């Protein structure tokens, strides 16, 4: 347990709608270990974004416990949380949420400035980050002048600017083509390796999910399946089916796993598949 940087226990979330309460999360339990790349999959509207928002502390759960770095977030003050977000946790949003009045470089500089870096230092670092996500030429463009993929990469650069311990990514490759998506995944893996960070991400892309150390499936408000992905023997088709019906995954893989384009720098953890806890 001590290796977990993030623990989630019996988390409930319900929205009060005009038509009545809508229970989105109904007891989510999982943990994120150090240097782990965790993927959460599930059909659209299953509550992935809701869960990530709770983890990031910008939304409040109805019930349950979330511990970050061993600290229960319900014990943390608003300001503690702010500092957490500033220094320890970064998030890449599904909608990017870039600041429209700032150029790409300024968007990346913003968290550095907030963390107290000087403007000069922030500028240098921001350029390096943009280079890392391969959009340095776009540095002085405003968000409305960027494509979705470019925006996404700016958002990523911004999220990792202050080298957080935990990176929360809501569909980090959604707007990217396969090559770029792979590039981002490489970047994440490299960060995990070099900066000791842990990543929790959602995705609809089985290929992306396949690169995770673990894949959690969210269904009916619960993590209905938790299985350790054997990267070598990942059933692509089966994984694809997760998107439609997570039940499918219960079945044994029927075909050979597809080899990945690029070898992971990190050795995948080998472990047996867990059956779902229902």
């Amino acid at each position: 347990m001590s290796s977990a940087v993030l623990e989630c226990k019996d988390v409930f979330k319900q929205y009060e709608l005009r038509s009545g309460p809508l229970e989105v999360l109904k007891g989510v339990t999982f943990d994120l270990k150090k240097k782990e790349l965790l993927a959460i999959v599930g059909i659209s509207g299953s509550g992935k974004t809701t869960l990530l928002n709770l983890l990031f502390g910008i939304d409040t759960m109805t019930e349950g416990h979330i511990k970050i770095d061993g600290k229960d977030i319900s014990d943390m003050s608003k300001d503690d949380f702010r500092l957490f977000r500033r220094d320890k946790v970064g998030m890449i949003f599904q909608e990017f949420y870039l600041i429209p009045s700032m150029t790409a470089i300024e968007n990346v500089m913003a968290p550095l400035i907030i963390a107290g870096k000087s403007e000069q230092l922030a500028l240098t670092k921001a350029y390096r980050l943009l280079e890392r996500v391969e959009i340095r030429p776009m540095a002085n463009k405003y968000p409305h002048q960027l494509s979705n993929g470019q925006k996404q990469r700016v958002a990523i650069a911004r999220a990792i600017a202050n080298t957080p311990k935990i990176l929360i990514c809501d569909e980090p490759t959604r707007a990217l083509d396969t090559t770029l998506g792979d590039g981002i995944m490489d970047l994440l893996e490299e960060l995990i390796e070099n900066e000791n960070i842990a990543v929790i991400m959602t995705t609809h892309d089985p290929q992306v999910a396949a690169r995770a150390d673990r894949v959690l499936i969210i269904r009916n408000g619960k993590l209905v399946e938790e299985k350790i992905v054997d990267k070598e023997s990942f059933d692509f088709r089966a994984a694809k089916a997760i998107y439609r019906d997570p039940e499918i995954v219960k079945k044994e893989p029927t075909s050979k796993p597809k080899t990945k384009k690029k070898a992971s720098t990190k050795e995948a953890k080998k472990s047996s598949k867990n059956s779902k806890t229902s």
Partner: protein
Amino acid sequence: MSSKNNVKFRFLFSLAFKNILSHKRHMVIIIFGFTISISMLLSVNLWSNTSEDLAINDFLGSQDFQAYIFSASQPEDIDEIIEDLDENVLVDFYSTGYSTAALFNTENKNFTTYEVLPESSQTDPNNPVSLTNAFITGQETLDRISFVFNVEGNFTIEDNGILLSFRQAQELSSIYDRDIQIGDVLNLSISKYIPNPAYGEIYLSSFQTTYYEDYTVKGIFTVNEGLSIVQSALSSEVLSDSIIFPITSLGSAEATMKTNEVPYVLFVKFDKEEITKDGLDEVVNKMQLFSETIKRDYPTTYIYIIESTLTSLINAYSRASISVVLMIPVILVGIVMTIFTINIIVEYRQEEVALLRDRGADTFQILLLFIIEFLIVAFFGIILGIALSFIISALIPSFSASGFNGATFRAFMREPSFSFGFAIGISFTLLIILVGYASLKIWWEISLRHKSSEHELSARRKMERNIFLGVNIGVVTIVVIALIFVLIDTIRNIQESQNFSLASTTSAGYTFLLFCFLLIFVGQLISYLVTDKFQVSLKGLYRRIVFNEAFFLINSFKRKDKKLNSMTFAVILVSTFVAFSLISASSVTQNQMLEADYKNGADMRIITYPVDSSFKNNLSQIDGINEVVALSKTTGSIAYDDYTVVGVDSITYSRIGKWDDSSFAEDNSFENLKILHETYAGVIISHPLAERLNLTIGDDIPIVNLPGGIFHRSFVITGIFNSAPGLGLLDGRNIEMLQQNEGIVLINEEFMKTELEISSCQLFLASVFPDENSTRITNEIKGLLSNTQVNPELINEQFIGSFIDTYIPNVRVFFYVQLIAIVLIIIVLIIMFTDFTLNQRTQEFAINQTMGKSTRTISKLLVIELIVIILSASIGGLLLGLVFTYASFNLITPILTSHNIIPYTINLPILEIVLTPVVLTAMALVGVLPSIIKYGREKIITALRN
């Protein structure tokens, strides 16, 4: 078809109402904009109309009479004229009187025809006959004119009573060698005098003197100078040396009066209802028509009507009504505010427009919906504005130096002269401007949404900018050209005379209007400089205050959609006008103080019952008083005009009097005063008189009809002046100074005493040592002589000026009203803008919060941004305001005052000017605090999804 349209309209209306209710805040601001603009314009109009009506009403009501008819050669005409008057509906009342002579001490002298010389030259100088003017009339006439007199005792001639002038009482006291007092019984003769112009001597002839015995002195009077027709008919000089005798006592002598052609006077008072029935513009015409008819029917009679004073009253109000232009800044700021609100609404409701479009509404329908909404809201604004204008118009004149005057307020509320035409006119103009703008803006935005491509959009934006620029340049050119023409006109008008005419005030009004328009464009330029150059250039300063977070501040100032910054223009405009109002108000205050000095003439102006001029010695005994000068007055004629002749010790007067540069026609005028002192028969005349008669210093000038027996006297001109402290303009015609419609000449005190035998005096000027308690001195003066006034607020309160003063407020009131309205508007504007900007930026704030920025930092940066914007804009605006005020001030003086006797100077209220940006900023911060707190409390997740 039509019923289908009906349904559509009903639907649109209900939708419009629903929209109004769901955008209450913005709608309230639009209503506010309309209300302020309409009420400011209307209230000034309403005030000037109402006050003119009230003043003329008061004036006509308080007048003793409004015309007199005078006939000497053909006295039998009078009976016919009286018959005519009885039939004329215009005539409310008339009364009769004779103006002739009375003799005292004629007992035992037994003459019917008598030659009367001045008392000192009579055959029996030890027992002389006293000659005086006699005004023979009835008690009802006296009751009407009593306000012109100061009376000791009763102002009655009933029961064989007579009234003596103070001067005549003194003369009788010396002749009878006893104090003539109220209650004394006297004998007298009524006679007729014929002056002999050749010698200035007075003979009594061709008249049977009628001897009357045992008349009781009921009262002793002095005459106030005032606007009485009786005074115009008899002249105050005649009245001040006279007796009043009851016409009922004449008896059979009345026939003798007629045969002897004693001047018969008919005093006429018009029916107020009848003469004002067809409007005030017709009053003067009706009076003139009346006068023409009398002249036509009775060619040998002389008729005088009071229309010239009435005309000057009407003129004064016409001039005052031009002060409506002083409200132009408020209206401009109100319009700017409404336009900004429209912009915000259009931006705010773009999604709504898109939705309507998705549902199949075409551009026209969407536009119609907005226009209907706007018209409904504007309607409320206009109604409110009209209602408010009634209150403001009554408040404007109700505040005087002495505080709130409830009676004036009620008078205005009771009988407002509301001009429907004007109200509808300005409401429509405002509607057309604002609805027109709103439609254009909405149409533009709607059609802009159509264009999908970024390229087309930017091309369109560029076009928009070019149109905007083109319109600006075009309007500026027109305004500048118009301004040049108006300026030439104004400068010519202002230089024309020392008293501003209606024409000069009107052209000054236009000048101000055009200046205000020009200001809008210059304001835009300054706004561009402030936002694009100045605010961004302060990087170093921001870094010093907020360190690395200056990054966010600079970004805010650099952003393309300068939401918060677009209020820079509004703040600039407002501070410009605030500077103008502050400077104007303080200059007006200072100039009014100078004017008061000038009116009083010295530290202390002391007005008494007639006393010997040596009373000045008693006055100078008082502790704290430095020097005193006595000003004794009489009248004389120069070139057929009456002049007030003032005798003065000119050396003392030069020291005590509050002279200023404009008093003198020439540079070495103090020298002139000295020369007057040294020249026994010297005179100082006014510049206009010198020009009219083509005279210069050293020339001789004859003055006739001076008292003292000699008809014709010659004086040497020792100086030419424009004005004299405490006396007003030397050429008269100065309403605001409330002085008589006559010119003034100054002569040597010695000449006055010795040659004209006038040593009594009613006016003293005194200088006071610095730091002396003026209340104590005033009380001591009053202790010396009861019934004495020191520095009275109104000088000659019976003159037309007092009627003007009642309802024309101090011009400062306009600036204060303006200040209040403008500041109100800018506060609303700042709150609205900040709230709008905060609303637009909530997502951005939330994003920043996800990166760990604290709400405190966000609020701090916002506050700094606001401070920088308001401070820089208001400083820019104040500087522009200074330039604007200095450039326009001399040209608009005819709006601020009625004359330029004292050069109108600008007074810069430095403290107020410096405080303005601070106060504006502080008010803005307090105003936006609730919004900042509200947005700071919003949950990040909700704000993100905004």
